[in-house]
């Protein structure tokens, strides 16, 4: 839809969300004046996860969960492996922890690169007001140049190849085991990782420069980041290390409120004391909220239990980054956008680039750590299993795996809190707010709809497993309905 269309007042659906992983659908209900009454997003329900897992050996879970979602298999593999450590009450040797964190850092670099350039890029690199025909991968290439495009592809390929050499197939990793990893690192492969890590750090610095040149030097983009339509004041959640720095692999879960004050800091094993899930009749996705505050509806502010995860949330809960270049970039983001916490949803793209640089620096530290060559990379589990909970920061936010088993280690109960779910309430608030700000009197145009979608895409939502859901890239549909629920307009992309 390219021109402004006058509709009979009443409902808009954006389904499926362009370039998103998994099937998304936005429904906008208008009132009798043609103004927005409510905007919702929906995802299809992926059924049967619990039934599928019950009775299976817990050791199979790192492979099963990585196959459910082809988008971030390594995040599920790692959260699952850590849940098995906890299930068997076994502490992996230092080399195993470092190897896991190193592989996870490599995965984070390549996944964040994919999102920044190719999935989020059409909004930010090409530009939010660019013609629809240019808001795609080729538009991104036109803006950043073919050389840069080639560099992104080559960087991802190099990291993925190394990960495959060490862990086996990306979708079926043979890597994490309860108490450690499946094999030790060779000197030769370690040198390849170290060389790639050096290039990854340069790539991270270069990407930050691209963001600086294209986004920060363009007042229009910065104004959009700061605009009220894309600002929600919620709580934030993310993993931090002992010094409260961002950590993707391990640590405690820290929550800060909308004023930036620490609200909670807990080990994942007690997540059920802190996180509860709200069910809404219009969506299959469950909306997690802070249990100690309670569900106060789809509203932001310090009194609401709604929280948010993913890059900006992680930066907001941390006192800084653990590596020097990324920390410098962190300080610049915070000073430019008015200090912690930053509530501007579109700043997620900037935070993602800073995290990419952090992951690259961390990869370099670990790849050059002689301890990863240690032959002691597994502690054999001996405890009788009962309950295990594991957490990592997936690219899209805090990811929790929780298993319960019988004494033989067969699953009796399994629960996942996936990253995209952590943002679902805030996304619902953001979409509703963007739609209200942009649609008046039943007037909808393509640019306005793109901005509604941008409120969604900034989170890089992946409904592949968010519902528990589909891998792959799927389209978006917006449906606009009147008060009676009649569809008055449907926009497919």
């Amino acid at each position, binding site marked *: 839809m390219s021109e402004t269309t006058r509709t009979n007042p009443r409902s808009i659906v954006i389904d*499926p969300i*362009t*370039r998103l*992983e*998994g*099937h998304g659908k936005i429904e906008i209900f208008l009132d009798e004046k043609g103004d927005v009454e409510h905007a919702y997003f929906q995802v*299809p*329900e*992926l*059924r*049967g*996860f619990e*039934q*599928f897992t019950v009775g299976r050996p817990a050791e199979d879970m790192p492979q*099963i969960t990585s*196959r*459910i979602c*082809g*988008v971030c298999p390594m995040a599920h593999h790692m959260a699952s492996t850590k849940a098995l450590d906890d299930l068997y009450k076994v502490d992996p040797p230092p080399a195993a922890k470092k190897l896991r964190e190193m592989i996870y850092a490599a995965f984070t670099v390549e996944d964040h690169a*994919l999102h920044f350039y*190719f999935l989020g890029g059409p909004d930010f690199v090409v530009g939010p007001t660019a013609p629809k025909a240019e808001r*795609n*991968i*080729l538009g991104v*290439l036109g803006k950043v140049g*073919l050389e840069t*495009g*080639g560099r992104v*592809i080559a960087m*991802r*390929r190099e990291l*993925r190849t190394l990960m495959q050499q060490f862990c086996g197939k*990306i*979708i079926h990793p043979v890597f994490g085991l309860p108490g450690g990893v499946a094999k030790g690192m060779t000197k030769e492969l370690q040198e390849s990782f170290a060389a790639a890590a050096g290039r990854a750090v340069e790539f991270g610095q270069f990407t930050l420069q691209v963001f600086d040149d294209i986004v920060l030097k363009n007042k229009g983009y910065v104004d959009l980041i700061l605009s009220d339509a894309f600002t929600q004041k919620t709580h934030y959640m993310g993993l931090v290390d002992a010094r409260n720095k961002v950590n993707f692999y391990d640590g405690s879960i820290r929550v800060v409120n909308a004023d930036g004050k620490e609200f909670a800091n807990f080990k994942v094993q007690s997540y059920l004391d802190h996180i509860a899930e709200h069910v809404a009749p219009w969506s299959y996705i469950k909306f997690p909220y802070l249990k100690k505050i309670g569900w106060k509806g789809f509203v932001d502010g310090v009194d609401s239990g709604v929280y948010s995860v993913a890059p900006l949330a992680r930066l907001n809960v941390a006192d800084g980054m653990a590596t020097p270049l990324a920390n410098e970039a962190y300080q610049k983001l915070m000073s430019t956008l008015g200090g912690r916490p930053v509530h501007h949803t579109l700043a997620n793209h900037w935070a993602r680039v800073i995290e990419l640089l952090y992951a690259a620096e961390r990869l370099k530290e670990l790849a050059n750590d002689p301890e990863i060559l240690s032959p002691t990379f597994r502690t054999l589990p001996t405890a009788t299993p009962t309950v295990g909970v594991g957490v990592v920061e997936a690219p899209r936010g805090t990811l929790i795996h929780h298993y319960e088993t019988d004494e033989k280690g067969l699953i009796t109960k399994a629960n996942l809190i996936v990253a995209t779910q952590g943002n679902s309430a805030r996304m619902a608030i953001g979409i509703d707010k963007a739609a209200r700000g942009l649609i008046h009197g039943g007037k909808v145009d393509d640019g306005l709809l793109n901005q509604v979608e941008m409120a969604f895409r900034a989170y890089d939502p992946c409904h592949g497993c968010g519902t*528990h*859901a*589909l*891998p*792959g*890239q*799927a*389209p978006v549909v917006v449906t606009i309905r009147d008060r009676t629920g009649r569809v008055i307009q449907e926009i*497919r*992309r």
Partner: protein
Amino acid sequence: MRILVLGLGNSLLRDDAVGLVVAEALRDRAGPSVDVIATEESGLSLLDYVVGYDRLLVIDAVKAGSAPGTLHEFDVGDIRWASTANPHATGLPEVLALGSALGSKMPGEVRVLAVEAQEIYEIKEGLTPALAAAAPLAVDRAWEIVQGWIADRQERHP
């Protein structure tokens, strides 16, 4: 002329596995005359697989509203970018365009053979009966397409 058959899908999501099942069956039938890859990866990850081939046959599940088991066939140019209800092939035109723009040799002819799925939202292994019945027909049709390409190859390089 190099030919690739690429089966896409997720083996844990019932009929979403049909592309994988058909590709594996074709591997047995075609032998070494063509390359066959069955993968659960999607999106940009597919780029590295298709580089360097002249002709590409993609086999996938689709939800297009017809009877389960119905075969759909189209050229990749018929897919609007990010506009189909297929979770895997959606990114394919973009992947091909990206590869070409970056100077990689991409397949000049890309056919998509899609099988209408019944159930793709349930985590469970195994095709539904309708798709299990349709899979051998899809294998036959895929083999016809590939044989046609092999014949072209022999005409050009007898």
